[in-house]
């Protein structure tokens, strides 16, 4: 048990140390260039490094009492765009869904009846 405690303390210490080195404090987060990148590419269009930067910038800016609306607009625009693109099924996709639904219904219904 003591070894586990030591291991946890060591991990936390290293994490803090590396955290300071790898993730330096963001200066002026509310006007960070990553916000413009997010507006241009969208959140899904950013790569992993950019996404991590964006999440940190968002948190830091909100902590400083910055504009929540900027981040809200970026996110809600993307949600709305995704929703508009996929709120209705197109062409064969609805037929496919019916087939899956029927297959699952028959599997469970017949299985239940067989018992």
């Amino acid at each position, binding site marked *: 048990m003591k070894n586990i405690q030591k291991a946890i303390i060591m991990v936390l210490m290293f994490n803090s140390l590396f955290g300071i080195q790898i993730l330096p404090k963001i200066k002026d987060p509310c006007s960070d260039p990553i916000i413009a990148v997010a507006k241009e590419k969208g*959140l899904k269009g950013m790569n992993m490094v950019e996404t991590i930067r964006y999440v940190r910038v968002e948190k830091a800016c909100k902590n400083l009492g910055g504009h929540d609306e900027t981040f809200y607009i970026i996110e809600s625009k993307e949600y709305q765009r995704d*929703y508009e693109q996929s*709120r209705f099924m*197109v062409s064969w*996709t609805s037929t496919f869904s019916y*087939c*899956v639904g029927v297959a*699952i219904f028959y599997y469970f219904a017949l299985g239940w009846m067989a018992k």
Partner: protein
Amino acid sequence: MGIYEPTLTGFDDNNQFPVAKVWNRNLLTNYGIYYQFFYNARIGYSSYTSWDFGEMTSDGGSKPIFGRSLTYRMFPIETYFRIKPKIELNFTLTPIWGRSKISLNTRLNESGDDWNTLLAIYGNEALELATTDAMRQDWMGYSGQIGFRYYLKTYLGLELKLGFMHNYYSEKNWRLQGNKITGPVYDIEKLPIFAFKVIYGLK
């Protein structure tokens, strides 16, 4: 992470294998990658694996380290739509290419002397050596699943899936070093399956 309930008679009907627990019978580790190729449709690869390992308790043997995996490799076509901006329903049909693998890490007996002779030339002391080999079996099947996905962020979602698997598994025709052998009996023909997934999306 998936949950299902197979009956692995080939292990449960004797006491030589590690004890059956939830983690080595009912839990499945899962990963997958999908590509949206059409409006409201994705295609991809998904793999569910059940793991078991431990020491075989056979009397008189070398008490080898035993490992068993059951992998359900899927090539799904998934259609979906959003009922709310953050909520998605999806429907999946997929063929299954299943594979089971049983490996033993056995201690060498007389044949280990050859190694020890070689090691002695370089001034080493004799070691207790081990050798690993595995028997395998493949089978085909199919699966249907319905999923409910909630997006925490536009690029990050949590998904619950419910469905069934149908596997055409036979204990005959296992393979071990080019030989055809009989393997353990698995009752995995018709199985309900539940899965929980964390989804990360890129464009």
